[in-house]
């Protein structure tokens, strides 16, 4: 379906926040789900691009996306502005399982990985549930949404690779340093970010026996489960491995399920 663009802003260099008017999506959307976006009418790029639902305003019927320009598709999307139309499918995929009311929740985001997690935090805010957020980026200017999350009552811990803000180092390093091993300081972890970061984080929390969910990325064709392009290697029945579809069974998977290589 076509949706009208309400607003498009460059929130940091190369990072855009796009708000569309899509009441049906706003009503149905769950944190962790994504939209499959047609970035232009071209044959190159040809395919849609999956972008997570970043924020939802049900009253206004608006849905916001947060994305980083990395190639042709996202560059085309960034050229659109208020009043333009954008074709999208969704909400697609399986989102995050919401925590129990009294659980201590940690959210770990690497770079643009904050995109879907912000939507989860929005939902937690609505339930008066505050979370500890670990937010990592290459440099201070790429730390997205930190102020907004703090205003909603979440506690934000910051890490940057270049040390320009917060903890100098990786977000997983900061997470590992901050949580008390063996204690029950964390009941549940939600994470999204580069594959290397997720792999490391899963090692840490599996050692600690903390349950959690990660949102993973894979290249997509159809986005609706038909083409089997978006395979993610997972632990299957017994000791076997099975490929699951990121667009259908994912993009959110339980921590123990993904096989990282």
């Amino acid at each position, binding site marked *: 379906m076509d949706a009208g663009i309400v607003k498009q802003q460059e929130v940091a260099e190369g990072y855009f926040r796009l708000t569309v008017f899509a009441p049906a999506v706003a009503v149905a959307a769950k944190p962790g789900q994504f939209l499959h976006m*047609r970035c232009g009418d071209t*044959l*190159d*790029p*040809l*395919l*849609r691009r999956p972008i997570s639902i970043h924020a939802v305003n049900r009253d206004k019927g608006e849905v916001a996306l947060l994305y980083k320009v990395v190639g042709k598709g996202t560059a085309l999307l960034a050229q659109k502005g208020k009043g333009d139309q954008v074709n999208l*499918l969704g909400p697609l995929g399986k989102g995050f399982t919401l925590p129990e009311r009294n659980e201590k929740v940690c959210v770990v985001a690497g770079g643009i990985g904050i995109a879907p997690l912000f939507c989860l935090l929005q939902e937690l805010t609505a339930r008066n549930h505050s979370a500890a957020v670990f937010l990592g980026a290459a440099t201070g200017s790429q730390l997205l949404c930190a102020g907004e999350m703090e205003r909603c009552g979440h506690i934000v811990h910051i890490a940057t690779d270049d040390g320009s803000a917060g903890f100098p180092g990786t977000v997983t390093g900061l997470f590992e340093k901050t949580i008390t091993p063996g204690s029950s300081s964390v009941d549940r972890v939600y994470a999204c970010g580069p594959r290397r970061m997720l792999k490391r984080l899963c090692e840490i929390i599996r050692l600690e026996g903390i349950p959690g969910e990660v949102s993973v990325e*894979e*290249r*997509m*064709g*159809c*986005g*609706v*489960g*038909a*083409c*089997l*392009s*978006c*395979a*993610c*290697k997972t632990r299957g029945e017994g000791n076997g*491995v*099975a*490929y699951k579809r990121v667009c259908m069974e994912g993009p959110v998977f339980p921590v123990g399920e993904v096989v990282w290589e």
Partner: protein
Amino acid sequence: MSNAGVKVKNRPNLSVNIGGIHMKNPVATASGTFGYGPEYAPYIDLNRLGAIVVKGTTLEPRAGNPAPRLVETPAGILNSIGLQNPGVDRFIEEYLPYLAGYDLPVIVNIAGDTVEHYAILAGKLDRAHGVSGIEVNISCPNVKKGGMQFGSDPVMAAEVTRAVKGNTEKPVIVKLSPNVTSIVAVAKKVAEAGADALSMINTLLGMAIDIKTRRPVLGNVMGGLAGPSVRPVAVRAVWQVYREVDLPIIGMGGIMAAGDALEFVLAGAAAVAVGSANFVNPCATMDVLEGIEKYMIENEIQDISELVGAAQRFSL
């Protein structure tokens, strides 16, 4: 009766017969791009499809190839799915019944490692309820054994065809590979071996390399190219085979819109299949169908058969 100058009042006839499979219109789905049907049911009325061709099915379940399995190239899609499927038995038990709720021909695409595999698959599907026809994939570039190997050797292609025909009463469509020196030579042998129809083309073997990491992009190194970039090759293949072989052809390769589909029909395809376009536009099949009908009305064509191979009279 079509009299010159008389406007066509009735809706044109779009129905076609593909080797014994009656299709209410010439628009089918291409195997592997449309899952098993339910995936696209939220977007289109499956009953309006001419036929559904489901994902390639093998004797045993297949896990498929490692990721990444897909990469985009200019106006194209390179894929190496590797025939991930639940195996024929689970397909028949768990996936086929869903389609029984619809009024449309179901064509099952099969692939095997050996000639015997193809024969057993044909036998199992012959007994299954709700299968209208079998599409024999002798052209998959993404599996180690079998697949394209059968499709590139006319003698082997004929042997597979005979084995399948020997085990089923259902119409048998053989899907040809473009990765051959002469697609006509393969088509002729397959026709002699008893095929009821042909579909073409499967994907073109290709690859892409990431200059940053200096390694092939696809997990399986090579893959099959589909999408608009392959269309001229596919139209040419249909054109050549139509002239030499007297079997109905399902044409495919880069059909994004009705005009593309009509190119295939004019070259000689009796029906068409829409593949990668479904990824871009989940309603692509319906847009193609409506566009063909509109073209026929505008050009006063009463029966789609009038267009099949109509461009051939300009052959040199």
